[in-house]
C-alpha cells in the first residue's frame, strides 16, 4: 500500500484508494465501512471502505476476510494482497487520520469530538466512492456511538441508499470485514514506518501495543514527554492518559481564553456608585501608551 503522501507529511489527513473496478460502475454494489486504531494513544486512526457488486459478495466471503480480528499482521497483509489481486471486482479507499489531526480536533477552541470526526470521515469516504462513480446501493457500517442515531444520520446523507448500522458488523458482512482488513493493514504500515518529525535522541520504538493501559506504552510516554513541547506528534495529546502525564511532567501553559482564577475583576459594581472611601487609583499612563500596551518598566 502506497502511503508515500503520509510519509511526506504525517500531521494531517491522507487519503489512499484503489482504482474503481469497471464492474462496480455498472452493477449494484455493497459498500462496507470500518476503522482501525480507535483506542490507542499512539499512531493514526484509519477509516476504510471496501465495495464490490452484490453478485460477487460470495466470492469476497470466500476469501475468508471475516475473522480479521484474530489474524496476525502478516496474515492480514496477505489477505489485503488477495483483495487487491481480485481488483477486477473489489475496490477500496481509506483515510489515515494523523494523531496530530485527532488531537487538534479534540483540543481545538471549537471542540470536534472523536465520534463526530469518525462520522464525518465515514460519510466523506462513502461520498468519495459515489463521486468516483461506484454504483453503491447498500452500505454496511460498524457502529460508532448509538446505532440508531448513526443510522439516521447516514440515511439522511444518502437517502437513495439502504444503510445498515450494526454493532460487530465486521463479523457479519464481508464488505465490512474487508474494509476492516484494509484499515488495519494501513494502520500497521503507517505505525511501522512512522517518521518522527522531531529529532529524538536514540529513539527506541519498543512502545508496546500503543493502548493506554499497556504498561510499556505508559513507560514510553513518560520517557518521551518534553516539559515544554509535550510529546512527539506520534502521540494523541487529547487522550486522557497523555493529558495526565502532561499535567504531572510538563510545564503549565495558559492561553488567552483559559479562565484564570486570579482574574483581577473590576471590583463590585456597587463600588462604582457608593463611595467606600478614596479608591487609591494610580495615575494611569496616557492613552497613547495604553492603546499600544506600553507601560514604564519598573524592574528588569
Amino acid at each position: 500500500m502506497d502511503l508515500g503522501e503520509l510519509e511526506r507529511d504525517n500531521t494531517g489527513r491522507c487519503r489512499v484508494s484503489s482504482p474503481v473496478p469497471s464492474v462496480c460502475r455498472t452493477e449494484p454494489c455493497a459498500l462496507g465501512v470500518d476503522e482501525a486504531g480507535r483506542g490507542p494513544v499512539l499512531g493514526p486512526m484509519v477509516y476504510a471502505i471496501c465495495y464490490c457488486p452484490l453478485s460477487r459478495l460470495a466470492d469476497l466471503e470466500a476469501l475468508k476476510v471475516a475473522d480479521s480480528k484474530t489474524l496476525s499482521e502478516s496474515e492480514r497483509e496477505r489477505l489485503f494482497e488477495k483483495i487487491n489481486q481480485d481488483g477486477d471486482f473489489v475496490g477500496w479507499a481509506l483515510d489515515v487520520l494523523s494523531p496530530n489531526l485527532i488531537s487538534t480536533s479534540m483540543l481545538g477552541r471549537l471542540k470536534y469530538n472523536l465520534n463526530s470526526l469518525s462520522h464525518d470521515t465515514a460519510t466523506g469516504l462513502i461520498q468519495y466512492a459515489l463521486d468516483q462513480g461506484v454504483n453503491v446501493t447498500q452500505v454496511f457500517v460498524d457502529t460508532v456511538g448509538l446505532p440508531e442515531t448513526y443510522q439516521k444520520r447516514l440515511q439522511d446523507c444518502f437517502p437513495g441508499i439502504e444503510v445498515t448500522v450494526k454493532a460487530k458488523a465486521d463479523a457479519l458482512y464481508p464488505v465490512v470485514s474487508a474494509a476492516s482488513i484494509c484499515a488495519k493493514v494501513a494502520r500497521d504500515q503507517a505505525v511501522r514506518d512512522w517518521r518522527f518529525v522531531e529529532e529524538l535522541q536514540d529513539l527506541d520504538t519498543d512502545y508496546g501495543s500503543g493502548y493506554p493501559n499497556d504498561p510499556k506504552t505508559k513507560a514510553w510516554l513518560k520517557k518521551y514527554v518534553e516539559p515544554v513541547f509535550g510529546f512527539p506528534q506520534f502521540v494523541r495529546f487529547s487522550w486522557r492518559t497523555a493529558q495526565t502525564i502532561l499535567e504531572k511532567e510538563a510545564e503549565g501553559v495558559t492561553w488567552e481564553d483559559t479562565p484564570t482564577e486570579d482574574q483581577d475583576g473590576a471590583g463590585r459594581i456597587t463600588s462604582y456608585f457608593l463611595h467606600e472611601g478614596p479608591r487609591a487609583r494610580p495615575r494611569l499612563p496616557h492613552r497613547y501608551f495604553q492603546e499600544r500596551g506600553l507601560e514604564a518598566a519598573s524592574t528588569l
Partner: protein
Amino acid sequence: VRQHVFLLPEHLKDTSKKMKNGLMFIKLVSPCSGEGAMYLFNMSLQQLFEIKVFKEKHHSWFINESVQSGGLLHFATPVDPLFLLLHYLMKTDKEGKFQPLDQVVVDDMYPDCVLLLKLPALEKQLRHVTEEKEIDNKKYYKYSKEKTLKWLEKKVNQTKAALKTNNVNVGNRVQSTAFFSGDQVASDNEEDYLRYAHGLVSDYIPKELSDDLAKY
C-alpha cells in the same frame, strides 16, 4: 536566568561592544509617578533612555534553545533628562533658596541620579527651568515655575506637530485604529491635538505641574 528582549536604537549596538559597561540599566525616579522606573544610560554618548515594556497576557518567547515566560518586549527610547531633573528641582524648591546642582540632585532611594550630572547638555538646558546665580565662579540654581511652563509649552507644541505628522488618532471618539476614514486628520480638530499632546507630555511631569500647564 531571566532574559529580556529589547528593541534598541541601532547605534547602541556598537556602544556595548566598544566599552565594557557602556550601557547601564539604572533605576531612577519616574518624574510622573515619583516611583522608581528603569532607565538605560549610555556612558559613551552620555545619553539617557526611558524603558517602556510592551505587555500582553499569555505570551512567551523562544530565545535560542530556551523558553522565557511573559513574552515581554522592552523598548529603549531617548528621553529628555530635564524631565527627571524637574522632580528634584521642585522638591528642593520648598526651601526657596538657590543651591548648587549637586545638592539638588540627591536621592538616597535612587543614588544613580548623580549620573544625570554627567550629562554635558544638561547644564546648558537648565536655564529653561531655573533662575541662575553665579558667585565666585560657582553656579547656583533655583526652580522657576514661569520658565518651566514656557519650556513645557514648547514641548507640547513639538509633540502636537509630531502627532500630526505621524497620523496618531487623537480624537476622543472611540475608533478602532485598524479602521479610519481618509479624512481622519480633518476630523481630529486642533483642540483634540492640543489636549492629547498635553496629556502625553504630562506622562513626564508631576500632577500639579500638569494641572498648571493645562491652565497655562
